């Protein structure tokens, strides 16, 4: 149908041209046809507004029919205008839908980007968390090292406290007393027979304790000091005190105390602790004193 009308239209135009007559075309119709062709060639319009395009085509055909029927110009103009409006409606519908599609895809794109951003942020956060955890672990490690060290030194302190306490306790058992020179254990003359330097048999219990003490405190050194009363000559008393000190040292060495930690000193009648006028005072003056070094140092001499 359309082709026939087109053919007729073309024919009439050709005929009109042949007759050298003024073009009897309707400009409104031409314009509408032109617009319709443009819209038809627009892939967006044909894809997104196909129904509107069909209606525009129908309108155009009606206008062409009216024109070919030789209807009044104002009627053809009117129908051409109607067709043209239908073309515009198709175009506007298509452009509206195009924009809506753009909006939809841009929104989708934005959502996708947001998701990517969130993912990236989450990844970064995870990494930071991991780094922070590693940091924390390292710091915890350092902290526990420090704690260990502190614990160790506390333990050492405790141990040395225990050792000191133990030392005092052990020596207390031997009636040790604290003096400015250090701990002093006095072995009374009951350990010796009068005028003899050999230790009496019953002294071995105390000597065992002493030896045990030296063995348990290997850093301790001691000076063994011999004293007498004032009976007899000064020189014989001096030699007696020396022999008694040596006897004590020998016994300790026999019991396993290294000799290099022991030394002896003979004082004879010097430094009496009691009055030699009475028998009881003289007995107290006949003694051997064991002076323990205060730290690891030497015993200060009198």
């Amino acid at each position, binding site marked *: 149908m359309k082709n026939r009308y087109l053919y007729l239209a073309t024919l009439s135009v050709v005929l009109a041209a042949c007759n050298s007559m003024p073009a009897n075309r309707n400009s409104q119709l031409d314009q509408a046809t032109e617009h319709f062709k443009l819209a038809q060639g627009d892939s967006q319009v044909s894809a997104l507004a196909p129904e509107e395009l069909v209606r525009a085509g129908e309108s155009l055909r009606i206008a062409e029919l009216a024109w070919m029927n030789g209807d009044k110009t*104002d*009627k053809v103009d*009117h129908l051409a*205008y*109607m067709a043209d*409006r*239908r073309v*515009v*409606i198709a175009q*506007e*519908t298509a*452009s*509206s*839908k*195009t*924009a*809506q599609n*753009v*909006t939809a895809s*841009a*929104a989708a*794109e*934005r959502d996708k*980007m*947001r998701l*990517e*951003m969130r993912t*990236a942020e989450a990844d970064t956060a995870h990494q930071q968390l991991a780094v922070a955890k590693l940091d924390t672990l390292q710091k915890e490690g350092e902290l526990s090292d420090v704690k260990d060290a502190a614990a160790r030194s506390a333990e050492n302190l405790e141990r040395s406290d225990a050792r000191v306490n133990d030392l005092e306790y052990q020596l207390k058992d031997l009636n040790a007393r604290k003096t400015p020179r250090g701990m002093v254990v006095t072995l009374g003359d009951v350990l010796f027979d009068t005028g003899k330097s050999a230790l009496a048999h019953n002294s071995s219990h105390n000597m065992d304790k002493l030896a045990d003490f030296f063995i348990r405190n290997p850093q301790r050194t001691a000076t063994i000091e011999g004293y007498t009363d004032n009976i007899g000559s000064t020189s014989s008393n001096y030699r007696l005190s020396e022999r008694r000190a040596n006897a004590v040292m020998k016994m300790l060495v026999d019991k396993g105390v290294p000799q290099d930690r022991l030394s002896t000193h003979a004082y004879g009648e010097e430094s009496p602790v009691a009055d030699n006028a009475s028998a009881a005072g003289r007995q107290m003056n006949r003694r051997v004193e064991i002076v323990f070094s205060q730290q690891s140092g030497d015993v200060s001499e009198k």
Partner: protein
Amino acid sequence: MPNVLFTSFSIRTITVLFVLVLGACASEPKSNMQMAVAEASVQHANTSSTSENANGQLQIALSKLDRARQAVIDKDYERAQQLAEQVELDSQVAELHAQSERSRKAAQETQNAANVLRDEINRKTPH
């Protein structure tokens, strides 16, 4: 969206039509009916959004409606019928143009937002 638009369009058109047709049964039924359609179309199209986004198209429809009314007064019913038919389509064109303008602006805004977001992402992750 367009479906909703046309549905409400049709309902309002039919309602107005019905009233006017009933009132004008006696004389010139054809042009009166088309006049009713034209009035309803313009009424529907005459919104703030249309006057903002498709003012030119809306003014064409409004002035043509006036001319149609005048034609009725002049008893030029054929012309009135034609103008009324044109007003109907002119109103639709105005509405659709306004709608496509709104859609175009919305698309532009969404694209801008997407671009801003893209820039932001690129700035945040320089690698």
